[in-house]
């Protein structure tokens, strides 16, 4: 898990790769969570 990086460029590429993957996952997961959260709401109510 603890990769050795020899240049700052390597480090940035690696960490940004993972970060963008997580951000993509969040873009999908958060709207799905919102759908779950509001799934039983009556129509017209905002809570």
């Amino acid at each position, binding site marked *: 898990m603890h990769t050795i990086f020899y240049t700052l460029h390597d480090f940035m590429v690696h960490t940004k790769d993972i970060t963008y993957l*997580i951000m993509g996952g969040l873009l999908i*997961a*958060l709207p799905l969570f919102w759908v779950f959260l509001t799934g039983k709401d009556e129509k017209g109510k905002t809570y």
Partner: protein
Amino acid sequence: MQYVKPLVGKIKPTPFNIITGAIIIMGIFLTIARFAGGLGTVTNLDNNNPWGLWIGFDLLCGVALAAGGYVTSATCYIFGLKRFHSAVRPAILTAFLGYALVVFALNYDVGRPWRLPYPVFFSQGTSSLLFEVGLCVFLYLNVLFIEFTPAVLEWLGLKRARDIVMKLTLVLTIFGVVLSTLHQSSLGALFLIAPSKLHPLWYSGYLPIYFFISSIFAGMSMVIFEGSLAHRFLHDKMDETHLSESQGVSMGFAKAASFIMMGYLGIKLIGLAIDNNWHHLFTGWGAWFLVELVGFVALPSFLYAIAARDKNLKLVRVASVLAVLGVVLNRLNISLVAFNWHLPSSQRYFPSWMEIATSIFIVTLGVVFYRFITTHMPVLYEHPDYRHDH
């Protein structure tokens, strides 16, 4: 309901009065010891650990948990969700008492109370984050004081003065949101100066954002938690409006807090990824970090979501306790537990019993003031003269 009560009634020897009385007497002795003998008499602070429990708990947790004031007033007056109106005054009162006690507690830590106005009026360190925090807390305490004065003026029967202050509500709310955004985040930014002292799992360039976002759900959870306590112990002081609106307030905040906590979890993951700190998760520190993140952020967020879906008020209250504890744990982890983590245990800081007792004394003062004010002033009920005023 009786609207006008004597200022100080006969004090009965109830368990609450006996316990709070004992704590206050002990607090007075500790206060004398601290100011007569200095920090060394009552604290375990040293040069490695100049910030202890009084900063980690009284200040960091106090400010975060007092965020209910700006969150609730913004919800009601800026976002226009008027069904939260009955929660505004209790939240403003909690915030005002919270900030007042933060400043009170700060005197114990820095000493020489008469020098407290110096950073604001005489020697401004404009390049310092502490100056920004100090200025914001000073200004916001005044904003909260003015925001709360309508309740005092209604109690005193000063109708004209009350009407003038009520006209300032929106301006004060905006001012409160701006000041809170500034100093809630700056409290996190204070730790950016110590990357080598704070454990990498808690240290991040995003600390100011973490502090600000967590203050939003801390404030909401605190309003729910405090509302449930008020329901339990001050039920007779609440009128029909407060009783009927309280479930809607709790459900609305539960849903909002749930979503914000999930977002917070997301940016915590991004923080881990951007600094490549994954390998720390497999250490003892990592386990403790996961306890904080899974047990006190993900779990309450999920419980809030289930409770909001099923309209389960009991579960909302359980989740609010977990969320409040989570924010306290986070602030204590950053300021005490994971701070100076590399030092041998003999040089680590652990608060003395007198520091803990002083913190309990200060929290107790808050509870006593809250009880006194809600007993006498129109906080949990609307004054009959102004019932249709909003």
